[in-house]
């Protein structure tokens, strides 16, 4: 949620970016699902670029965006129209339910689907401009040589990022979140069905550039990765601790600019480990490729861990 302005209106949409023509005709999600559901189990779905510019719109979830000056009632005060009404029919219902229960349930279904497809899924979080897409373009270009790779891109508007990924020869689906400031599990479930089968491969989810809200939403990923660039300052982990606490890996990007900036890598790592003592750290330059060997080794270790976990479960 956007805890600052509370914005949640608009029409989120999921689009497969058309590499050559962004204005190609639209098709409904149901048509898309029907198309894929006719494939025999295990058969590889055709890559997105074979489809004629499929896209669909999601229904708006909130019809009205209320003015920001709407006043919340003080805690514990009955609404005026109920005060003194003399009704004795009120009942107390104990619930004890997580507020994000619905999202978590869908995320669990996504996770089961990803495990069944033997897929590693990384949810990339960062502030806007940290270099997630540049990092992904380099990573997928190199990783695609050894395994299936796909990308789900989240942005408020445009299919620009998905097109950059597709230009690297990797299938990508663009989700436009409209006024929403994060991706949720339902969006990922729908977008994943638009990708070709990636069995044994890697799915990268590039979340909306935002260091607050995406931390709260489980998408069914294997783990979260936070990317932050040295232009942002060492104390980012202290300013936005939730996302660093939720991530398994911190990637410090743009290290090629180190000679121009006074950035203390050691201090950034120390701050990140104050909020998450277990967080792994890799320093890279998405522009030059420095540090990417360490990133791929880390990904391979996650694949090994997932395999072990899967085998242990199966025994």
């Amino acid at each position, binding site marked *: *949620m*956007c*805890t*600052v302005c*509370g*914005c*949640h209106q608009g029409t989120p949409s999921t689009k497969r970016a058309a590499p050559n023509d962004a204005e190609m005709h639209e098709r409904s999600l149901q048509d898309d699902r029907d198309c894929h559901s006719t494939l025999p189990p295990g058969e590889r779905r055709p890559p997105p670029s074979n489809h004629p510019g499929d896209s669909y719109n999601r229904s708006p*979830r*909130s019809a*009205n965006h*209320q*003015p920001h000056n*709407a*006043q*919340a*009632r003080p*805690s*514990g*005060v*009955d*609404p005026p*129209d*109920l005060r003194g009404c003399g*009704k004795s*029919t*009120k*009942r*107390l*219902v*104990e*619930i*004890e*339910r*997580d*507020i*994000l*229960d*619905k*999202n978590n349930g869908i995320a669990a279904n996504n996770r089961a689907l990803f495990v069944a497809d033997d897929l590693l899924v990384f949810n990339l979080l960062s502030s806007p401009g940290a270099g997630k897409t540049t990092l992904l373009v380099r990573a997928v270009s190199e990783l695609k040589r050894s395994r299936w790779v796909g990308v789900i891109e989240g942005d408020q508007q445009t299919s620009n990022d998905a097109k950059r990924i597709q230009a690297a020869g990797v299938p990508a689906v663009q989700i436009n979140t409209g006024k*929403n400031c*994060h991706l*949720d599990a339902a969006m990922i479930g729908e977008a994943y069905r638009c990708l070709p089968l990636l069995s044994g491969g890697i799915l990268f989810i590039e979340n909306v550039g935002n260091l*607050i*809200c995406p*931390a*709260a939403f489980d998408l069914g990923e294997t783990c979260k990765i936070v990317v932050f660039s040295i232009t942002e300052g060492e104390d980012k*982990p*202290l300013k936005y*601790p*939730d996302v660093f*606490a939720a991530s398994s890996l911190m990637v410090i990007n743009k290290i090629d600019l180190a000679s121009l900036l006074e950035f203390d890598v050691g201090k950034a790592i120390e*701050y990140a*480990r*104050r*909020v998450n*003592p277990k967080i792994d750290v890799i320093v890279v330059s998405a522009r030059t490729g420095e540090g990417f060997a360490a990133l791929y080794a880390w990904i391979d270790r996650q694949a090994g861990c997932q395999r072990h976990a899967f085998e242990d479960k199966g025994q």
Partner: protein
Amino acid sequence: MAICLGIIQIAEEKVHERSSSRVRSICLEMGALSHAAPEAIRFCFAAAARRTIAEGAALNIVELPGVAWCMSCSKSVEITRRGECCPCCGSYHLQVTAGEQMRVKELEID
């Protein structure tokens, strides 16, 4: 707002299960280390509840402390936010054990 809509959705489910038509109050438990601030929830709730069964419902938020296990002094300690050091030994080797919850605890319905 997504969190407020989640609260209302849970309330709607319970109200329909019990053939009720109105929620009088909603009690939430919010941990100090959860992803949303109680003031923000209060701010958004009235707007989110408009034209739903929760319109006009009172929102009671029980704020719970953050708790972490200090790996240096092997104690459970209370913290108010992430990145804070152990109040006993000053170490940052803390593992959060409680205070991350955002839960609907109970509803009062007609």
